[in-house]
Each structure stands twice: as C-alpha cells, then as structure tokens.
C-alpha cells in the first residue's frame, strides 16, 4: 500500500470519506515524516499539537457527515502568511517572535474549509530570492538527490520541498516574480500563480504589492485546482482583490484541448538555452499538438526588458513596504541612543544582505532626480509588456514556455553568489507574468540527464485559470512524471 503521505489531496479525501484511515492517523503519519526529514530544513516552525487537535475535530465532522471541502488535509503554510497565534516571520530576523493576532484571508479560507496547519514553511527572507538561501533560518535542501545538497528554489522553497518530500499534502506559496513556479519546477511539483487579484493579499506580508499573489503548490494539477477553489475569492479587506465569481477549477480537468491555440513565444528560446530544457519544451508542444491543439508562433517583443523592469518595480515597492519594520511595535529591536539610531541598529541587524540590497535599489529608483529615469520608465515598459500579452492572446488561448532556464543548482553555488544578477536571471521566464498580472502554472515535465526535475509553464489570459488547468492536465497525463516516494 502507498504510504499515506504520498497520497494526493484527492486520494486522501477519498480515504478519509471511505474510512480507510482517520484524520488523526493522517496527521500522525505526516508528523512522523516531518521529524524524519528535518534535515531538509523545510519547516521553520512545526505545530503538531494544534494539528492533532484540529484532526480530532475533523474526524468528528467526518463522523457526523459534516466534512468541509478540505476536511483533514494537512497543509504547510509559507512563513509569509500571517497565522493567528502562530509565529510568522517571513523568515526574517527582524520579525523575531512575531505572533499575529489575525489570520491572513487565504489561510482563513483554507482552515475554515477543514485544512489543517502542520507548520510554517521556510522561504527566502521576505520572499526575496530564488534559492531559499536568503532565509534567516538557512537554506532548504532540495529533496531530489539530497546528497548533492541542491537548492529547492525560491522564494517558496520550503513549500515546494515539503510537497515534494511528502511532509505536507500541499502548501501555500506566494509568487512575486516566479516564487511559486520556479521552486515547483526545481522540486518536481505543481504550482500556480493565479491572476493578480484572484486571491486576497490581506495578511500576507507585502513584498511588492502590485506583483504579489498567493497560490497553491501541490502534488498534481487536480490538487492545485481544488486548493485554488478554496483560496481564491473576493475580499473587501484587499482593495486589489477582484470581485468576480470563482469557477470550480476542477471541472475543466480532463476536458479536451482539441482546437485550443497554444502560443509559443519566440523570445523564450534565446541562444544558448539549455538543450534539455529546450527538448522538454518541444515535448510539451508535441503532447498538446497530439491532443488536437493548434500550435501558434507568437511574439512577446518586450520580453528582454522584463527582468530589468521587474528589478526596478519590485524593489521600489519593497523599499516602502518594509519601512514598517522599524523595531517600534513588534519583532526585533536593537536599542540606540536616539530614535534614528534605534531604527538604524534594528534594520542593520534585522535584515539580511539581499533584503538590504533591494531596499537600497528601491530607495534609489524612487529618489528625486532618478524617479523618471527608473521607476517611471519601468512603469511604462511594464505597460508594453502587458500589451504584448494582450496582443498575443488575440492569436492564442494559452502560452507554453519552460519555467526556469536551469534545474536546481547547488547550495552556495559560486556562480550564483558572486553576482546577484546571475541569481536574478533565474526569473527570466517567470517575471513577465507578474508584470502583466496573468495566471501561470508550472508542472513537472521530466528529469534532466542527471536526474533533476524540470518544469514547463502555462500562461493564461487574465482570470482564465481554467484554460491553464485544462492544458496542464493534458500535459500531466502524458508526461507521466514520477513523484518522489
């Protein structure tokens, strides 16, 4: 029999409904597995006691036939989400010991549907990073080829690793420039960044407000669809959340892609693109073509400016969003002989190198005299990038690209660490989507020659996650990717 922790959410829900096992048994299995796999450093806080007490409630509900949509499903929560009564730090030293008195809307939706919190997951500090190495709690180890000590990707590295390693059934992530999709690709799991505005940002510590979006990371497409059903929805507490009905995303799974137009952007196949990745991209194209989809060449001409644009806008917003961490009301405080010195001491000690770098860049691009040349110009380019997609979607229904230009690389990799730009280049296929506010999903397509997972990305029209899920399910079925046991 398959281990309980290897089951998908759908399989687990089936087992619970059919009384094959109880929620308490499920939770106990996960807790055991979490203990065994602590060397991955996926969790920064485990909450087994509350998980067990919630499990008892879930069992009661099953007993009474009053189970909710995710009744008894063990979830890992990225540490960027504020969870009421549970320490939430964004994996930053500056939020030492911070216990929110409120619940983020997304986690509230999950927990009120029966989801059970196993703990808080590791991430890059304030979601700034692509390898989980900027976390105050140290890097997450990729569960694939653990002896090679590879990164899990980032910023939702803990989320992707925990799902891949079967130490949660699924996890929440957030994606500002690829933070759900890239670690999903590195860890061989499925994750979707929904359309900007689909999920409420209330209670999620802000990195770049106009780009941040929460989404699920799960073992397969169906689990992602189910989780997004629960996570999404209008929230009056977030003025940027969309007041639109949320369709049942699981309904489109298994539907044919016959006649669907799949856009293939020329700009995503630059000279020197990793050959294996290029080949897997072709495999994805073939799968869809064989299933009756029409392949269309499209152009996203401003793609080459996306990374530069992103690394102006995101730090600009971050420099302002992170101003509230001043040592006055919560988290770390390092005293000083004057208010200004207390701020300086607290922020000097509380923030890591990458966060400081982005605060500096963001402050610079917003400064008088530089604003027009950087921030304002970036906003204009952002519009052009969005317009590229709008034009492209006149020719196609969904776009297929690789998720990341590489597979997982070693922790402490010299090339990545000697120049931050090398690390940022990881986001080359993912950032445009955030700038345009579109939904995009990453799913595993296969393993590299040395056995590491690689992912493909499906990008949809605004608020058309359904087509993304529909195409993803077709690729998933044919790719027959084998998850870690």
């Amino acid at each position, binding site marked *: 029999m398959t281990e309980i922790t290897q089951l998908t959410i759908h399989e687990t829900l089936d087992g619970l409904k059919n009384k094959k096992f109880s929620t308490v048994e499920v939770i106990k299995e996960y807790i055991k597995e979490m203990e065994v796999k602590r060397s991955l450093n996926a969790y920064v806080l485990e909450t087994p006691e509350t998980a067990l007490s919630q499990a008892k409630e879930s069992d009661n509900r099953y007993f009474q036939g009053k189970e909710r949509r995710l009744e008894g499903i063990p979830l890992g929560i990225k540490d960027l989400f504020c969870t009421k009564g549970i320490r*939430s730090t964004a994996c930053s030293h500056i939020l030492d010991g911070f216990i929110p008195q*409120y619940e*983020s809307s997304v986690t509230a939706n999950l927990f009120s549907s029966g989801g059970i919190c196993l703990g808080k997951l590791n991430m890059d500090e304030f979601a700034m990073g692509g390898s989980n190495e900027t976390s105050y709690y140290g890097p997450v180890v990729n569960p694939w080829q653990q002896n090679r000590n590879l990164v899990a990707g980032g910023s939702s590295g803990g989320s992707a690793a925990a799902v891949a390693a079967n130490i949660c059934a699924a996890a929440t992530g957030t994606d500002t420039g690829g933070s759900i999709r890239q670690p999903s690709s590195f860890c061989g799991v499925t994750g979707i960044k929904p359309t900007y505005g689909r999920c409420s940002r*209330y209670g999620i510590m802000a990195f*770049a407000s106009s780009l941040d979006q929460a989404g699920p990371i799960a073992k397969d497409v169906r689990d992602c669809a189910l989780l997004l059903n629960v996570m999404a929805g209008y929230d009056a507490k977030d*003025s940027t959340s969309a007041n639109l009905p949320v369709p049942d995303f699981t309904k489109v799974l298994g539907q044919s892609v016959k006649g669907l137009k799949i856009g293939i952007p020329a700009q995503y196949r630059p000279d020197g693109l990793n050959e294996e990745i290029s080949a897997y991209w072709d495999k994805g194209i073939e799968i869809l073509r064989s299933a009756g989809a029409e392949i269309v060449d499209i152009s996203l001409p401003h793609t080459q400016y996306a990374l530069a644009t992103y690394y102006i806008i995101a730090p600009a917003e971050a420099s*302002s969003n992170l101003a509230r961490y001043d040592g006055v009301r919560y988290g770390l405080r390092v005293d000083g002989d004057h208010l200004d010195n207390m701020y300086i001491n607290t922020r000097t000690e509380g923030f890591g190198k990458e966060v400081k770098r982005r605060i500096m860049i963001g402050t610079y691009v*917003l400064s008088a005299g530089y604003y027009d040349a950087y921030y304002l110009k970036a906003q204009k380019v952002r519009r052009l990038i969005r317009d590229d997609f709008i034009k492209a979607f006149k020719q196609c229904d969904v776009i297929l690209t690789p998720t990341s230009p590489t597979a997982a690389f070693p922790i402490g990799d010299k090339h990545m660490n000697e120049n931050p730009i090398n690390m940022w280049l990881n986001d080359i296929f993912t950032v445009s989507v955030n700038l345009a506010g579109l939904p995009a999903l990453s799913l595993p397509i296969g393993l590299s020659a040395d056995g590491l997972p690689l992912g493909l990305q499906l990008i949809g029209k605004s608020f058309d996650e359904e087509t993304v899920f529909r195409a993803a399910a077709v690729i998933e079925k044919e790719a027959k990717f084998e998850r870690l046991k």
Partner: protein
Amino acid sequence: MIIQGKTNKWEIVCGLEIHCQIISKSKIFSTASTKFGADANQNVSFVDAGMPGMLPTLNQYCVYQAVKTGLGLCAKINKYSEFSRKNYFYADMPTGYQITQFQYPIVGEGVVTIDLEDGTTKEIRIERMHIEQDAAKSIHDIDPHKSFIDLNRAGVGLMEIVTKPDFRSPEEAGAFLRKLRSILRYLETCDGNMDEGSLRCDINVSVRPYGTKELRTRCEMKNVNSVKFVMQAIENEAKRHVEVYESGGTVEQETRQFDAVSGQTKAMRKKEFAHDYRYFPEPDLPPLIISDEYIKQIADELPELPDAKKNRFVNELGLTKYDAAVICENKEVAYFFEKAATGHDAKKVANWLMGDFFAMLKRKNLTIEQSPITAENLGRLVDLIEQNIISGKIAKDVFEIMSETGENPEKIVEEKGLKQVTDSSTIEAIVDQVIAANMDKVEAYKNGKTGLFGWFVGQVLKESKGKANPQIVNKFIQEKLG
C-alpha cells in the same frame, strides 16, 4: 498691505495649505473609530498600527465628504484621482509612509470669496485639494527621556486645501481662514476647530518689490494653530524678508517654526526637513473613479452656503451687508436667525439677535444651541412689538423673563398683564389726571418750557405702568397742552 522698508516698498505674496480633519465615524483607510477624546491608543486597528500584511481600504464616506467640500469651494471635481505613498521614517507614521494624493488629487481648482474690512470682497483661488491620512500624535512632555505615541489620530482622514499665492496681507489670510471654516462648518465636513487641531495651517511667505510681478524665494511655517497666529506669522516673516533683502542678503528656502510667545519665526535644523519623500503610486489602492451622477447627487444635497445665504438675507430680507455677514459667518446663528425671522420683521429680528440676544448669550456664557430663548419665541417677541401689543421698553422686560424661564413671550405678557393699553378713553383719562395734578408744570410749559413735554409723557407712562401706547399718549398730551 504694503511694507515700507528703509529703501523700498514691498508687497507680501502668501499662500496657505490647510489640513482639515474630515468628519467621519471611522478612519479613512481603516474601520477604527475617530471619536475625539478616547484614551490613548484605543482607536487603533491593525492597519493603523502598521502591522505586517495589513492593507488599507478606502472609506467611501470620506470620499463623499471630500467631493462635498470641493463643491463648496466651487472647485472642479476630478473624476479620476490616485493615491500615492509619501515615504518617511518617523515614529508618528507606523507604516513608514503616508497614504496621500500627489499627482492626481480628487479636487482641482476652485475659488473662495473673502469679505474684507472695507466692505469689499476678493477672490482667493484654490489650487487643489486632496485627501490623505493623518499621522499619530507624538507626546514629548510626559517623560524627560522618552517620547510617547498616540495612534488614535493615525489614519484619521484629512483634506489638504492648497491656495494659490493670492494673499497680499495678513488680514486677507485671516478673512480666508474664517470664511473657509464657515464653509466647512456649513458643509459639516470638518468641525474647523483650530485649537483642537482639526484645522491646521501651513503658511508660505515671500515678498517682492511693490509693483513687480516676480515670485521670490518663499519660506514655509508649519502647523500654526490660530487665525491670530497665522496673521502674526505672515506679518513678521514678511518683515524679516524685507530686512534681509534691504541689507543685501538673500532669503533661503526653508521651513521655519513660528513661536507663538515671541510672534517671531526661527529656522529649524536642516535635518528636520531635508526629506526626499520618494512619492510613488499606492499599489494597495486602485485609482479612485467617481461618476458624474455621484457628483450631481452630492451637489443636489449641498446646503446653502454662507455667501449665498448672506446675499439672500440682503436681497430678500433687507438686512444690511454687515448684519448679514455677521449672522451668516456661523451656521447655527444663521439657522437660528432664519427660523426666528420667518413670518416676522427680519430686520427687527436681526437687531434683537445681534443686540440683546448675543449679549444675553455672552453674559450667560452659552452657545446659541443652549439658548433658553427659542428662535420661534424671539420672532414672537418682535411680533408683539410690531403689533403694538407691548412697547419696546416692556419688550426688554419680557426678554429678561424669557432668558430666565424660556417661556413663550405671549404667555408672559398675558400672565403678567403687560399688554399695552391702546384704548383712547383710558389713556385720555390718565392724561387728564396727570395734567390736573400738575397745573404748575402746565403753566411753565405754556410759558415756553417746551422741554417739559417729555416729562408729561413719562408721567403718563409711569401711571400706566408702562403699558400705555406711547404714540397715543403723545397725541393726547399734544392736544391737551395745546
């Protein structure tokens, strides 16, 4: 006002920026209460405290109030406006930035007409008005080493009104502030209390040689908290500029602090104002779009404003411009007057209101809302005089009783038997009686001491206990004394 320097004549060029706290039950971006006088840090939501992950949501009532105010300033309402962040580190701003409007304010250009002492009016142009959140209150005088922060004020809605540099004298600025306060109170969008900080004024002052049109370097004085101080600050700062220029110096653009005790301004340390606020569009709030219908709906609900009311009182009720201006400055007074004047002699009501009535309020230290005399009863009192039921003299006595008991004047006159005697035969009898008893005085009168006429009238009135109609008394004495 022209400042006569040692060598030159100078003209003041001054503009104002006024922060007005919006009257609303909850804060502009959170659901916390705005109630004044709560214990420190009681009216604070997670949003106001800048907790991680918290997001602002716009209070639509504050938008309503801002549009209403914009219409009251005869200003253009911008159907598209945007919020921006103004970034700075200080303990009074928990998020490290203030949400305000920068490039696209909700209200554009407008105009306010001010009334000057010489009876003329002047139009002061409004540059713009935007909405934003207030900062927390820093308290520095509780502990010698620590400052305390009260977040109750953090996030209260503000309207910032910016004028063009149209003021040429401190008096004009004073008249503007009074007029603005009056308009805001009529609109009920800001209570206008400068001493409580719900209306705060920043002043920009420069001077130029009289007759030129140049704009010279200006200095700013922030948070001056009374009309008197604003006027003082403008005058003294302008004089300082004149002295600097005439002694060959240059004025530096800077923020200066007004010291209410000395009346002078002094430079603040550079560090305190050398900010780069790094404004950028607030990504947590979408642009604010309002429709023509919405604006029209508010315009239709707009109350009559002080200038319109004043003109109506002059044109329709025959009040003098001065009386009308005094009555209309304060909304409650104007409403009281209108109620009292309806159906009665408006000019006489105005005289009573501005004379005995105001004196009574002042003596008893009451506001008009607390007046024991209702508007209706003041109107009735004027009627009693007009209808010759009581004399003006008796009316003063009745007014005194009204101010003690709050009773209806008709009832007082009835109960105390103060009704004027207008019956000719009764009055004639009293006149005859007085003449008969004072034949010596009649003799003296006939011999040319005509000044005794008034004495006879007084005696008759006295005999009638003041109730005899003075005109009839006059008529009979005239007849009888020949």
